[in-house]
């Protein structure tokens, strides 16, 4: 136990150091270069680069923690943040907002995220209405989520094709992940949501460990499985919705990061949640930096990079750990 804890602390410190390094790098590097003498440089650094890297951290953290929660809820290693249809619902909300006339009276930069969040929320609420006890039938929850997600995707595709001039181009870019409009209000909201979601898990980490044992055993350990599962579902989808609202659909992070941490440090949720959050933050920080510098001027959508980095790395890791169980 002790050596594992020490290992966890070492990795946590290394990740924190990495985060600091990524922040510094993000402030210095960008398509406008490094020109401290230029008039607009201060604006670029403090209003563009800094909120963007912080939002990347927040989104990465939210996705990783949401992934960990989903994997606990479903007791399944393949679960990830979007599995209950959140990304499809958010996409639908965003696309409807893009195709309807733009609001001039809104809070700047928050309309699109609000619409996306409303879509993700609607799907989750629908799920909760249809399924009374998410904890006792994870398979049913999964299938229902997939069904609703597919429905939302189809509706989204319909709106995209119906209003191609207005939505297709802007929507495509957001649908594959982009942090290009990052602003301080967004950063604040995202960090608060991340902190809340993370704190909840840290405080209830023993309950999460118990849930992983199965309905019967968890119940015998004194956990109210129904209530706990519902709360877990809400926490996970809230984190996923907010991250999709601000960054669009970013694949892979929510699936891979908790796995990697689990492979390195075991399934204890206290370590898992905290370190997944840190690792997710670091990953997104690097991914976003690459996204905005590799083909400057111009950006690569985030999902493309997360998949290109995440997949080979994950395959390597899986091949190197022989015989260790994952689920």
């Amino acid at each position, binding site marked *: 136990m002790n050596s594992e804890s020490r290992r966890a602390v070492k990795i946590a410190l290394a990740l924190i150091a990495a985060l600091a390094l990524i922040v510094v790098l993000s402030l210095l590097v*960008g*398509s*406008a*270069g490094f*020109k401290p003498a*230029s*008039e*607009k440089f201060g*604006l*670029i650094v403090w*209003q*563009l*680069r800094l909120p963007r890297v912080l939002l990347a951290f927040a989104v990465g953290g939210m996705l990783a923690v949401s992934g960990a929660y989903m994997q606990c809820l479903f007791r399944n290693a393949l679960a990830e943040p979007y599995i209950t249809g959140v990304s499809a619902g958010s996409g639908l*909300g965003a696309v*409807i907002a*893009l195709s*309807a*006339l*733009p*609001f*001039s*009276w809104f809070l*700047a*930069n928050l*309309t*699109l995220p609000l*619409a996306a969040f*409303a879509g993700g*929320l*609607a799907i989750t*609420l*629908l799920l*909760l*209405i249809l399924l*009374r006890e998410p904890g006792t039938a994870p398979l049913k929850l999964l299938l229902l989520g997939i069904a609703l997600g597919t429905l939302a995707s189809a509706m989204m595709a319909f709106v995209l*094709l*119906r*209003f*191609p*001039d*207005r939505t297709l*181009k*802007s929507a*495509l*870019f*957001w649908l594959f992940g*982009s942090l*290009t*409009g*990052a*602003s301080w209000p967004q950063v604040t909201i995202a960090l608060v949501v991340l902190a809340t979601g993370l704190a909840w898990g840290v405080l209830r980490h023993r309950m999460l460990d118990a849930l992983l044992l199965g309905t019967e055993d968890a119940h015998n350990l004194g956990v109210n499985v129904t209530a706990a599962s*519902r709360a877990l579902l809400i926490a996970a989808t809230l984190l996923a919705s907010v991250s999709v609202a601000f960054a669009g659909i970013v694949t892979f992070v929510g699936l891979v990061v908790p796995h990697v941490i689990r492979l390195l440090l075991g399934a204890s949720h206290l370590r898992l949640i905290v370190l997944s959050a840190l690792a997710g933050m670091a990953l997104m920080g690097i991914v976003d930096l690459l996204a*905005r510098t590799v083909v*400057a*001027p*111009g*950006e690569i959508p985030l999902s493309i990079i997360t998949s290109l980095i995440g997949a080979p790395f994950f395959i390597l890791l899986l091949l190197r750990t022989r015989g260790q169980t994952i689920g």
Partner: protein
Amino acid sequence: MRTLATVSLVVVLAITALAAPTAAVIVVGGEVDPFAPVDYFGVEFEPAEYSRIVTLAPNLTEMVHFLGAFERVVGATNYDTYPPEVKDCERIGGFIDPDIERIVALQPDLVLAYRGNPLPVIYKLKELDVPVFVLDNPSTLSEVYTQMMQLGRLLMVSEEQETRIRRFKSELDGAFELGARLPRHPRVMMLACSLQPPYYAAGHGTFIDDLIRLAGGDNAFGSEGFSVVTPEEFIVADPEFLLIPEIPEEGFREKMLEALRAQPFLAQTTALETGQVLFIDQDILSRPGPRITEALAILQDALVAATTESGNDE
């Protein structure tokens, strides 16, 4: 719990449903002067001699050039090709991924955008106090004229330049009169260039549809907007003329014709049987800007020739 969830869902949907029509009222409540520099969001701009302009779409650059204000442009997209001097402008990205850092670094006093640019970018620029004038996608050629007049007012161009814009409008009107007088209106279809199905064509509500109408043709493709044409639709529509945007590549025309003829449902259309396929430079045909009159002239000449020759009717 279920009741709470149901109530929440209803509330969320209700708010969304209420917000949409309200937005419509705000934007549609129009202005009296059609050429006042009021952008798509309804923001009124002060006319001024803006001298550091960044454009987020090639047709906007061409419009500024047409207004004689090209030397005021400091940044353009990666896809800009006209005028040739645009290669000396700083490139700021694509139209779906403009680079905010580059734009801000250029210290523009005006950014010209259109509705297809990503909204987060437009909002972020506004948040950074960069003036962004957003134009809608024109669905008719007179809208192109209106937008150029608006830009003219916005940039405070000279009387001479405004006369040039009005001449553009009279060219459109002249073409319309000529087109309306044709003995018949041949069926025309504009296809996006692609060597394989599915084929996209310009339907109702696009500016190409308006182009065809002005030239004196009849858009054979009946669907809304820019969408896919099924093989059956091709056979039923039987276009007499095909309009295809041309890429400046060796042997493009031959390759394209060969690919089209390889599809039986296309090969039997009147257009391919009689060889009435018009290739127009894609920068002229696909951009709703000042050079669209060139495409209009090419199409109209072909239609006039086809309808006034004796014995050329189907």
